[in-house]
């Protein structure tokens, strides 16, 4: 299961990512199920963002699951959209603190994380090297919402991976997600330090190669049972818990 894929059309960046390409790339990598989300957020700058994701999942039943990408600034409207998303079968919340200029520890953000937790759904944070999105910043959200499952997408990017592992050691509700960060051996270190049950495979595809991201996990040299958890078992457990 690939827990981080995108569908969206962003002419300003020249990025056109559709569901068919996600599924083609999943097939290429031997992936059965994927979780898709948009690049931008609802209600701004795309009021139709949830529909776009729901349509993608409807086109590939059993292959694609949905995460709702919501802009924290929109208060009750944002909460309402997230509740709608769960009512429509979405499986989690995606937050990108850089694109929304929303600190992970801000009350606007925490409000959404708490709603997700009420549905036993995970919150996937973009977590890399940029201001607002470093592991230590996201750790504040994990500490403020111990009942929430917090996924560190990209597990710290290029230069914050060790900090991501440290944050996961300190907060039992933090899960590390492997997409894009370039170090196979850091996946192995993460498994050694926090256990295989809190590390997830993902690709950030389809523009990033799910096949290469699979290879990255394989090169980590995990034990077979640990690798099975990272590739699928953990994601299935997280998504099956969503109410």
């Amino acid at each position, binding site marked *: 299961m690939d827990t981080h894929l995108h569908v969206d059309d962003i002419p300003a960046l020249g990025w056109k990512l559709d569901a068919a390409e996600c599924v083609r790339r999943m097939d290429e990598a031997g992936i059965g199920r994927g979780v898709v989300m948009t690049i931008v957020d609802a209600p701004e700058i795309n009021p139709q963002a949830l529909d776009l994701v729901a349509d993608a999942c409807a086109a590939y039943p059993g292959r694609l699951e949905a995460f709702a990408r919501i802009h924290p600034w929109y208060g009750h409207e944002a909460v309402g959209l997230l509740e709608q998303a769960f009512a429509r079968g979405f499986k989690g919340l995606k937050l990108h603190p850089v694109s929304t200029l929303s600190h992970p520890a801000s009350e606007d953000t925490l409000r959404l994380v708490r709603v997700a937790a009420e549905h036993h759904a995970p919150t996937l944070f973009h977590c890399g090297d940029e201001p607002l999105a470093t592991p230590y910043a996201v750790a504040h959200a994990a500490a403020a919402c111990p009942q929430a499952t917090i996924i560190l997408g990209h597990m710290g990017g290029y230069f914050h991976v060790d900090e991501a592992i440290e944050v996961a050691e300190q907060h039992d509700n933090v899960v590390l997600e492997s997409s*894009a960060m370039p170090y196979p051996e850091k996946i192995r270190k993460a498994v050694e330090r926090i256990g295989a049950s809190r590390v997830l495979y993902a690709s950030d595809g389809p523009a990033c*190669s799910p*096949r290469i991201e699979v290879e990255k996990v394989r090169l980590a040299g995990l034990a077979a049972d640990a690798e099975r958890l990272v590739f699928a078992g953990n994601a299935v457990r997280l998504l099956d818990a969503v109410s």
Partner: protein
Amino acid sequence: MLVGESIFGRSADAAELIGVMDDVGIEHAIVCPAKPPDYDLSGANEAVAEAVAAGAGRLTGIARVDPLLGDAACADLERALAGLGLRGLLLHPWEETFGIADRRVDLVVEVARRHDVPVIVAAGYPWLSEALQVGALARRFPDVTFVATNGLQLNISGLGQIDAELALARADNLLIQTTGVYREDFLENAVRRFGAHRVLYASSYPLLDPRLEIRRVQWASFSDVAATALLGNNAVEVFRLRSEPDEASVDEE
């Protein structure tokens, strides 16, 4: 690839590099000095020359200097290129802490220009070697070939791509390496838009894993001709390697 003892703790000697190259199917590698624990880049250049000598003809060495040292850096570079037989210059703005577009860099680039050797820039580091900063330097020296690591960007949101493409569009003498570039579509677009001759496979071993890095080229949607260029022929041209290896053969930096 990087050779020699590193202050950051990731060190490799010539024998280790050759072993890794054999594992991945690499025939030849461009090797640069790691940042040494004693900060002595002159000594690190000598260590690279020794590694090349121990490399059975499979390693080509690059010199590294700190341009903030001015005339002393120029003298070191002269000695490395003329005396030690090294074949290019590595500038690492992040580890030596200088801005790549700083005019003081021009002095050492001028030495490289006189020797007609390429300049590798550790690129994508915030404030110091951003894509457009590297591009500015490349435009000041249109007759020098600049090779930027990391596809000119280190941004896990993909937000460095536009600056990287702008830099490539404005400087034909600026090339990129594939190291750590997770967006496959960026590499494919770079080849499509700027030509396969502008992109070179590299691993930055021991910082990154060549077994993964080489897949970024082998598994992307490149023609066989383009893939062969990225995996070897471009490096043969840029670093003027004597014999042209077969495909999947040259690992830079």
